[in-house]
């Protein structure tokens, strides 16, 4: 087909032309790839961590009931669990004991939680990797924790939580109920919150409403709501980062415009020759189109590949702090690589589309050089 052959011929010429101007093309390619790299890193990271949060929260309870006093989270009486158990469709109602502990020696906040498996081994704890990293030496021995009455509890490290769970467990210390109540001085009738399951998943909202009615000082929280919050927070952070990066995108667009518009004498000359030899304006525009495709495609691939490696092998060293959130204890974990067409399409809209639009007018100016300029030089 004539049309296909024409595209091939012009593409061939375009690639040759780009190679003849290697230096100029390379500069643009590098900047373009860099811009795509930065945006892709943000997008890949956000997407992957949202997925990670969802995966991790899979094991979390569907509903938690807390008690609020004067708008603040307070201890909840065990008797509330009995009331909740009576609601139709509810099962697996359990009290949880957990809290925060601030370690002044390293400024870290630990999460202390009761694991019923440890109830027979009071004095022994299981810690997360982040906690372990903050302890001196390899043999962890016993950790001194300051109790609410000012005395110190020496708890022996019996084990370390596996790396796979690091995202949620990095700062975790699991202990027996006895040690926990001793640490924080919590009376036997109280727990921190109550977890429950509902047989029919569609009924969670109804059950939550019933609990609010039966126990007016309680606050039911759905796992679904937590996920939504995580999504919104990560999305928001990514969005803000991109807004900040808009400055560099703009600079890149100006560079693209400048490079397209500021043709060297040689480039103008070459286009003049083509026009004089019988290439029409639309043929030159076609050439410019293929030029754009070649540059965009190359930069896109390079940028995405670099971002992929950056996010999934180097844990996004450049953007981590902003995207993950501030904390002294960073869980070290590898994000599961995950890219889909949607992310690629978003990247395309953010980079290739503005680039193309920025180069339309300069390309057109070149293409509309008078064919008889060759005669007049």
């Amino acid at each position: 087909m004539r049309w296909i052959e024409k595209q091939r011929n012009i593409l061939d010429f375009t690639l040759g032309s780009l190679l003849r101007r290697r230096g100029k093309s390379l500069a643009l390619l590098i900047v373009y790839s860099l811009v795509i790299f930065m945006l892709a890193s943000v997008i890949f990271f956000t997407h992957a961590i949202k997925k990670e949060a969802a995966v991790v929260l899979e094991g979390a309870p569907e509903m938690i009931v807390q008690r609020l006093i004067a708008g603040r989270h307070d201890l909840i009486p065990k008797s509330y669990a009995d009331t909740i158990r009576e609601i139709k469709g509810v099962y697996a109602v359990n009290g949880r004991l957990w809290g925060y502990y601030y370690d002044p020696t390293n400024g870290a906040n630990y999460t202390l939680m009761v694991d019923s498996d440890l109830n027979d081994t009071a004095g022994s704890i299981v810690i997360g990797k982040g906690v372990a990293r903050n302890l001196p030496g390899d043999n962890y021995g016993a950790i001194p924790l300051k109790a609410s009455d000012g005395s110190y509890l020496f708890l022996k490290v019996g084990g370390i939580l596996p790396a796979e769970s690091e995202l949620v467990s990095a700062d975790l210390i699991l202990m027996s109920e006895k040690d926990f109540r001793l640490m924080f001085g919590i009376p036997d009738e109280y727990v921190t919150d109550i977890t429950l399951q509902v047989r029919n998943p569609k009924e969670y909202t109804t059950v939550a409403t019933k609990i609010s009615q039966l126990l007016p000082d309680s606050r039911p929280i759905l796992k679904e709501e937590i996920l939504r919050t995580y999504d919104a927070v990560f999305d928001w952070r990514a969005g803000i980062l991109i807004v900040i990066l808009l400055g560099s995108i703009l600079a890149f667009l100006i560079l693209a415009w400048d490079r397209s518009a500021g043709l060297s004498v040689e480039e103008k000359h070459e286009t003049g020759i083509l026009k004089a030899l019988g290439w029409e304006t639309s043929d030159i525009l076609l050439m410019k189109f293929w030029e754009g495709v070649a540059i965009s495609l190359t930069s896109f691939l390079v940028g995405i590949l670099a971002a992929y490696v950056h996010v999934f092998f180097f844990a996004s060293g450049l953007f981590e702090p902003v995207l993950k959130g501030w904390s002294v204890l960073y869980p070290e974990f590898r994000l599961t690589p995950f890219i889909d067409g949607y992310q690629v399409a978003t990247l395309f809209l953010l980079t290739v589309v503005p680039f193309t639009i920025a180069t339309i007018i300069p390309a057109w100016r070149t293409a509309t050089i008078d064919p008889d300029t060759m005669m007049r030089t």
Partner: protein
Amino acid sequence: MLVNPPILALLIFSALASAMLLYSCVYGIRIIKGWDIKSGSEYQLSLERRTYLISTIINYVFVFQLLSFFVFIYTADQLHTVFAGAMCAAGTLNLNEWGYRTVLLKFLTCVFSGVWLLINYVDNRGYDYPLIKKKYGLLLLIAPFALIEGVVQGLYFFGLEPDVITSCCGTLFTSENEGITAGIVSLPRLLVQGAFFGTLALTVLLGIAHLRRRILRGYPFALSSIAASAASAVAFMSVICLFFYESPLHHCPFCVLQKGYGYIGYPIYFSFLAAAVSGPAIAVLDPLNRIESLKTVVPSVRKRLIWLTLGAHSLFAGITIYEMIFSKFQLQ
């Protein structure tokens, strides 16, 4: 206000597209006022050069607008996790009054720019640019759609509030609800299927008749194709999607775009859009055959469009009929 990468991308693109279209309109007005193909003045030559720019701009805007249409729907779908009650794009779009309007405006912008590009293509092949003034007059009518779409999209995104509870498609697309969608969903199934297959068959027959030169004018085929597009849309929401979802009550047109259904929604939407653009385009072409300089151009373009329309309708029918036959769901 939600700020995430896809939303930013869509807003930035709309802003850029609007700017380019406004720019095109400015020159469009100049062309309408000052064009004279017989003149060899430099002003005329500069106007002729400018038409290349505007064609290029609209070409790009059209292609990117198509992409943004799908990204918008996908974004609405992805956002459903953030809003209570939303299970898919249907719920997210229902969060404020601007959601569905944005979808409609994006769709219309795609269709109008597609038709404009076709007229442009035909006009460029006439040795005296016979349609130039009408073409740019049309551009002045189309551009506002794109501009308004950008504004409405912005209003939609800026108006998204996570605290608002919305409805899931299960309640939006039922006969108990009010509005057009309820009307569509409660139409008698036999009638809907009859209309769907009937208009499709008619379109194919008229297309073949035209390609074999039994019919010369394009109007019959074009009208039939438009009717088939309308019937397809109604049939899809009313009957066909039930086979995809294997449920007698699930009428949502958006869930089919999700991963759970193998993203089959995309080829369905794509083929529907292609037919929606090419059908009316053929109707627009017919009167142009009277123009001297286009007499050799119109027939060949029309022929290619008919093939495209037939192909698009076939793809849509193929996917949907396959599902209707092989789905585990059976209509009573």
